[in-house]
């Protein structure tokens, strides 16, 4: 039943891929090889394979998650194909790897709640990945986010995000009642005993450390944001996010003083127009691209995204700035559709959290949902100049192996949670 619905939900993905690839090819046939159209077929094939796997291994799983992420990924690969067909081939390969991990999790982690016994391992692994990146990572554009392994650049931060979320789900679930106790009030807000602020301060210190050592705002803010959402869900105490926000403000002021990159990002956000050919170039070009899209966009392949030598006009167009490309070529209509897809994704994830019947599952789903919501907000808000830019990928849409693999891993966990809940309900 659930899987039939899922199959029907794949129809828009198939239609989008056919129309999308065909129009990109039509608009840019001079620069493209007809064989590149096969990436699109392969892409759709991979998702159908994932669907068959779910039929066999997790038949009761949520029927919207996979089609919605497939639509987002389709949007992404269409845009990547338009920017550079070779990158679309690579992205399809990444999708293959990602769905490999996805399948492994669905098959071997069916009883995902066993993870609760290994949360410290997950936590340590998550932190270790960050530490390795800081020590052995290479700097790209000043940020130390990448690890070079056998000729490939991987971004361990993406995996850390999921691993640390698993850790927090188990940890906060076990300490939930303790953390929810209140001993005093301030301005009418019930506050926990001071000694219970320990985990909060540890997470804060760690996030701040990540910022200082990795030289990038994105992972640090994302991690702390996920933590605040989870601790709030676990305790139902507003005090934690409130104190957390205060701590962010302190860290922000301090970071502005000591980190050039933070100062730069903030100053460029306030006024990118003073240096449109250098420091403000990327964001200004992003705004021009977005503005050019108007209501319905220039059409796929018809926007002004590349110089005549094929170089993208906006640096990092296929990764951090992919949303600007979507907004230019598909307009307000297409870009809003992407945002609504993310909203549906979050809705389904939070629904899974609410419906599941144990604390670990609830917190895990909440953490992953909050992670997707915040990551989307940070990067799209950044490219629209709503907030200062933080360099992170747009989940499922941006080009990038690490991001793809880690996010499909998270998706597999969410499908397993919903599969279990629905199975229990059916009993």
């Amino acid at each position, binding site marked *: 039943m659930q899987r039939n619905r899922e199959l029907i939900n794949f129809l828009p993905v198939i239609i989008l891929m056919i129309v999308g690839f065909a129009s990109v090819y039509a608009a840019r046939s001079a620069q493209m090889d007809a064989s590149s159209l096969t990436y699109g077929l392969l892409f759709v094939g991979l998702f159908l394979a994932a669907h068959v796997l779910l039929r066999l291994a997790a038949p009761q799983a949520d029927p919207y998650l996979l089609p919605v992420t497939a639509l987002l990924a389709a949007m992404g690969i269409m845009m990547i194909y338009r920017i550079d067909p070779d990158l679309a081939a690579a992205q399809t390969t990444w999708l293959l790897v990602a769905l490999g991990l996805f399948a492994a999790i669905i098959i071997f982690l069916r009883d995902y709640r066993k993870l609760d016994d290994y949360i410290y391992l997950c936590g340590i692994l998550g932190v270790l990945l960050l530490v390795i990146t800081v020590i052995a990572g290479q700097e790209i554009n000043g940020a130390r986010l990448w690890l070079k392994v056998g000729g490939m650049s991987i971004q361990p931060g993406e995996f850390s995000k999921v691993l640390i979320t698993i850790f927090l789900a188990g940890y906060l679930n076990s300490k939930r009642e303790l953390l929810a106790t209140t001993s005093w009030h301030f301005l009418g807000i019930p506050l926990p005993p001071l000694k219970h602020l320990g985990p909060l301060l540890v997470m804060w210190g760690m996030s701040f450390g990540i910022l200082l050592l990795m030289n990038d705002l994105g992972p640090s803010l994302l991690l702390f944001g996920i933590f605040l959402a989870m601790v709030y869900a676990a305790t139902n105490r507003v005090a934690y996010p409130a104190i957390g926000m205060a701590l962010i403000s302190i860290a922000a002021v301090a970071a502005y003083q000591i980190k050039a990159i933070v100062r730069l990002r903030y100053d460029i956000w306030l006024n990118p127009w003073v240096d449109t050919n250098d420091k403000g170039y990327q964001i200004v070009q992003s705004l021009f691209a977005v*503005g050019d899209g108007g*209501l319905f966009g220039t059409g796929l392949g018809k926007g002004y995204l590349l110089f005549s030598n094929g170089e993208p006009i906006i640096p990092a167009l296929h990764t951090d700035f992919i949303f600007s490309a979507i907004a230019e070529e598909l307009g307000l209509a297409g870009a809003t559709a992407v945002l609504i897809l993310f909203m549906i994704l979050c809705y389904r994830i939070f629904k899974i959290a609410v419906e599941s019947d144990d604390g670990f599952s609830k917190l895990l789903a909440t953490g992953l949902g909050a992670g997707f919501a915040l990551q989307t907000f940070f990067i799209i808000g950044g490219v*629209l100049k709503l907030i200062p830019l933080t360099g992170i990928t747009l989940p499922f849409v941006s080009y990038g192996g690490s991001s793809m693999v880690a996010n499909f891993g998270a998706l597999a966990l969410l499908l397993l949670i919903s599969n279990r809940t629905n199975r229990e309900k059916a009993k």
Partner: protein
Amino acid sequence: MNAPIRRLFLVSVALFVGLIAMLAYRQVIQAQDLADNPQNTRKVFAQMRIDRGLILASDKMELATNEKRDDLYYRVYPSGDLAPHLVGYSDPKYGQVGLEHSQNSYLTGTADEVELVNLFDTLTGKEKQGADLKLTINPTVQEKALNELQKIGKRGAVVVVEVKTGAVTAMVSNPTYDPNLLATNWDLLNADPSAPLFNRATQGLYTPGSSFKIITASAALESGQFTQNSRFTNPKGSVDIGGFTVNNYPGAPLGEHNFAEAFSQSLNTTFAQVGDQLGKDKLIEYMLKWGFYEKPPFDLPSDEVAASGRYDDGELASPGAPMDRAQVASMAFGQEQLQVTPLQMALVADAIANGGRMMKPYSVDSVIDSHGTIIRQADPEVWKTPIDSQTAGELKDMMVKVVNEGTGSKAKTSLVQIAAKTGTAEVTGRGPNAWFVGFAPADNPRYAIAVVVEDSDAGGGIAGPVMRETLLTALGL
């Protein structure tokens, strides 16, 4: 746990709604502003597929033309650094400025008048072509003025206007640059403290110094309180007004004199007293009549033309802003935060030469479509009438005296009678900015001119010859 999770979902919905609102703002409300931003090169890129119209000087010399590579038209400027500040550039990376920017719809054939012709061409299978611009610029005069400034090695500007029509014969800003080499020199040009990309002729704001005495004199003569023969005396060479001591330049003649002599000898003390008697309202009234406090209507993009007037902290002050006596007196001889452009001062000279009628300046003589049909022809019109013809005649006589007997002797030539007013504005740490504002021939004026030379000398020995030589070339002498 379900209550806080639901609330977290609502928070994430709020974040998404925020994103959609911002997206809609950028793509709908702000879209036009973003598209019009000169830094936004996507329009230029799209237009590179169009055979862009040529830009020609008055003698049809090519100032801007095209080179076709891979189906795209690249702009080439055969005249190099001759007139880049007026002509501008059109570049997919650096955007558009100058006439290339403001006349873009003609040059690309998207203006309504050109569109119709293009429609027929498209139907008959011809390629879309832009319309050509024929400018009023006389390359000989332009080159002379530029050479004069380059010869003395000074920054500055020269604007020459045809008296009867307002047609701009030359518009020079030095240092200049070669628009063909933008890609190579972009960083250098932007870092250069002498600002070669900046159009000093229309945007350069300079203290007018004594050249502003023309405005004060016009107000004085028309007020009925003063005539050319009004008597003044000044035994000390200085005068105290509102607690502020006004001095004449060293070596200025002392003693009794009339108003015309005060003008030709450029006596600050007398003009301070005249200004004090006329009062702030009268002076401001005349500045407004002369077109101060507004941008002269000109073919260049509006942000490449500055308004003249009193500036306060880099912003044009309101004409109604309060001023004390000392400020009024010092404004009367061209100080007190007055800032004027060379274009504005050339128009001041034009009005005097043209019997009190200030012509609207223009540089595009005609627009010619790809079939050779003139689709737009400039029609000279009066912009302002600051003074009547009698005052214009009196000012002309006084300006002749400046050249023949006064501070403008360095512009004097036996070939033609030049009328002019000089100005010197002190600049801390450097030589003063020197002005020459005038026209020739005095009895039947054909060309009005404004010259400003930065880091100059006080006597007009550097700026005077620039004016004289440029006028002689314009007159073919």
